[in-house]
């Protein structure tokens, strides 16, 4: 037993603590994530390898062989689908890192209430969760890109543009899910529903495997509202120069940023309201 070397009120610089609150939460989330690093890496590497083998070497070979040497839009099929697959990987990565920690923070272990008892504010907790999720998304996408380059599926010059386009999708989706999860009062399997009835249709009907324009017009709106399509289109233009009107370029970036703003606009007040209860 010992007493404390204690100088009440002397240890903390409030301004410094307040300034870096969001980063402290992100730091904690990444530290927690590191406990599951094996799973994160296995998931990050396993997915691209499976997709490469099944789609790149399977469907891709079929598509390339039947397009009279022209391939899809002048590039290999794998190059065409890569931006969409990367967007999907980024979205799945942030989905896991936003939804479960937020449920844990508000409902399961209620850790957000402990964090909010420090100098960290409610909006900084939201930011921290988002930033950590983006770090996870970036890590997953980087692994994916590494595999694509290793298999010579994309040129190395495409790495940065594809990282950028997929992270835009990750950012947009992270804030949307932050807002959605912050509203949940109970764990009733909503994420399985979102995965099956929101993410899966968006992934399948957003021009992932063929250009959106080839789909029936009544299905195309799914792509228009989906971050997958906007991110994939950006990635295709940035990585191999797929043709795009400058206005559409702005529409794609603008829409993803719009989702970020809307997501945060709904998430911040909900975080504040729940933590003040």
């Amino acid at each position, binding site marked *: 037993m010992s007493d404390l070397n204690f100088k009440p009120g002397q240890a903390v610089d*409030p301004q410094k603590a307040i300034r870096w609150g969001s980063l402290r939460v992100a730091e904690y989330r990444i530290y927690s994530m590191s406990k599951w690093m094996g799973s994160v890496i296995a998931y990050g590497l396993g997915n691209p390898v499976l997709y490469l083998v099944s789609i790149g070497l399977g469907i891709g070979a079929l598509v390339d062989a039947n397009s009279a040497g022209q391939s899809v839009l002048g590039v290999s099929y794998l190059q065409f689908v890569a931006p969409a697959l990367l967007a999907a990987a980024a979205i799945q990565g942030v989905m896991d890192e936003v939804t479960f920690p937020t449920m844990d923070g508000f409902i399961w272990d209620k850790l957000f209430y402990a964090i909010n008892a420090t100098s960290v504010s409610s909006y900084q907790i939201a930011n921290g969760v988002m930033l950590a999720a983006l770090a996870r998304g970036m890590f997953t996408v980087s692994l994916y890109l590494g595999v694509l380059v290793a298999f010579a599926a994309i040129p190395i010059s495409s790495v940065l543009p594809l990282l950028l386009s997929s992270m835009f999708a990750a950012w947009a989706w992270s804030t949307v899910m932050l807002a959605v999860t912050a509203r949940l009062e109970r764990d009733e399997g909503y994420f399985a529903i979102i995965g099956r009835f929101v993410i899966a249709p968006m992934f399948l009907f957003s021009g992932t495997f063929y250009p959106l324009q080839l789909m029936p017009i009544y299905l195309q709106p799914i792509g228009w509202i989906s971050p997958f399509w906007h991110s994939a289109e950006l990635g295709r233009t940035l990585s191999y120069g797929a043709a795009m009107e400058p206005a559409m370029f702005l529409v794609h970036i603008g829409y993803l940023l719009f989702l970020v703003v809307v997501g945060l606009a709904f998430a911040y007040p909900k975080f504040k309201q729940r933590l003040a209860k």
Partner: protein
Amino acid sequence: MSQSANDVVIQAKGLTKKYKDFVAVDGIDFEVKRGESFGLLGPNGAGKSTTMKMISSVSQRTSGELKILGKEPNTHGPEIRAHLGVVPQKDLLDRELKVWENIFTYGRYFGLSRKFLKGKVDELLEFAQLTEKRNAKADDLSGGMQRRLAIARGLVNEPEILLLDEPTTGLDPQARHVLWDRLFRLKEQGVTLVITTHYMDEAEQLCDRLIVMDNGKIMAEGSPAELIKQYSSKEVVEVRFGTDKNEKTAEKLAGLADRIEVLPDRILLYTAKGEELLAQILESGLHPVTSLVRRSSLEDVFLRLTGRTLVD
């Protein structure tokens, strides 16, 4: 933050919190001085925890005034919280992290450096008697150890005020005494303690001064000794005649004591001389199933003020 010896660190005036039509805290006034151990005593639902949330600057009041460390919590919440230590009713530990990691990661929220925290974590583990459990997962600790970890975590920023919400609820007697000892040491070191509890013995042990709350209002304020002196007698005789006989027997005891309270399971007789009164009862031909003479406690104060016991 100012450091003068007797300054007021918490000041509440007409403090009110409403949830729609429900008034959880109803216009209460109180002050807490630096270095004091201040208690909020009352049954579940009295408004103690709601008051605590407003003091901890996370829940905004509906009306009234509140100053913590001289600042307005509605506008300076994070700044105030930088100097508070909070031990919530449920420990809110990260069960997946190790014991030392819980303290370390918490310290980082206050912007404390890794170098500072390295030494501080060891010191707090020693203080909380958790050094041997340093690398155990928080989830694997007993209830008492988790509570001590929550207190250690709440001290990581060397707070000016430590807020403890029901610190020993759910703990066995031994764990409670260990915890009381730790809290008493903090008090000796000049930390201001604010404690909510519905245990009268805890309030008597730890609090220099307290407010008794019920239905969101303050029923009485003072030191435990003052409250007992003001609202109760020196001693209490507890007699049991059987659930169906207590009420009827109480009528025969009227006039023997300063005051009588009839509870479903026992009769309480308030007097200055307990042993003498008990002898009188026995001489009158009444034979209780069990009898006990004890000194008055805050439980008796609460019973007097509200007509109810603290733990229903």
